[in-house]
């Protein structure tokens, strides 16, 4: 079983190295994703954001504009991810809904109610 895992790891590394050969040089602003027009003629997203962020939302910080306005639905989903994590920790770790401090505060009577 260990050998299979080692093989998996090596295959994963080889796949990534093979994939990185196809990537454009990091940092040249002529790469496909930075261009104004994508290869198929539709407007390139990131260059549109840079040129129009201030015009559309009067906000110099382009990342905040994308975060809240252009791709605002992503951030709403992200908020829900945090809320889910909070609810899960509440669900898994709180013993039947009452925290031990509340049990101590309600004193003996509270403890009877539990049992």
């Amino acid at each position, binding site marked *: 079983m260990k050998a299979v895992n080692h093989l998996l790891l090596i295959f*994963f590394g080889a796949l990534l190295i093979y994939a990185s050969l196809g990537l454009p040089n*990091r940092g040249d*602003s002529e790469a496909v994703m930075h*261009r104004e027009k994508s290869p198929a003629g539709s407007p390139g997203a990131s260059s549109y954001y840079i*040129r129009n*962020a201030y015009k559309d939302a009067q906000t110099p910080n382009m990342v905040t504009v994308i975060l809240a306005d252009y791709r605002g639905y992503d951030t709403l989903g992200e908020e829900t991810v945090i809320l889910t994590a909070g609810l899960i920790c509440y669900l898994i770790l709180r013993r039947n809904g009452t925290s031990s401090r509340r049990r101590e505060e309600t004193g003996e009577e509270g403890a009877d109610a539990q049992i």
Partner: protein
Amino acid sequence: MIDFILGHYVYWAIIALLIIGLYGMIFKNNLAKKLIGMTIFQVAIIMFYVASASKWAATVPVLDTALGAAEAAKYISPLQHCLMLTAIVVGVATSGVAFALVISIFRTYKTLTESVLLERMKSS
């Protein structure tokens, strides 16, 4: 060849980080160490996106009137940075839930090493 290496050595470093993270998740016996491997894996992917967003001689994507009109070559691509805010938050949420589960496991089984855990699961 030189500028190919200059343009890609960061990606190879990130691939090494990814393999380390995956190694940690698969081969480590302790549950908490698996979590560390998982976090390394997620951070490596965040690095991958942010590394790909940079441009030579371009500044932070906050509009600076001193640079004049906003052209794509002057600012680095802001989209990846926004996507990675989401990925960071997902990483935090997953780690939070994972630690809640680790505590819940420790509370019932009093151990975090996987081999001992599997025996205790079978016996109970």
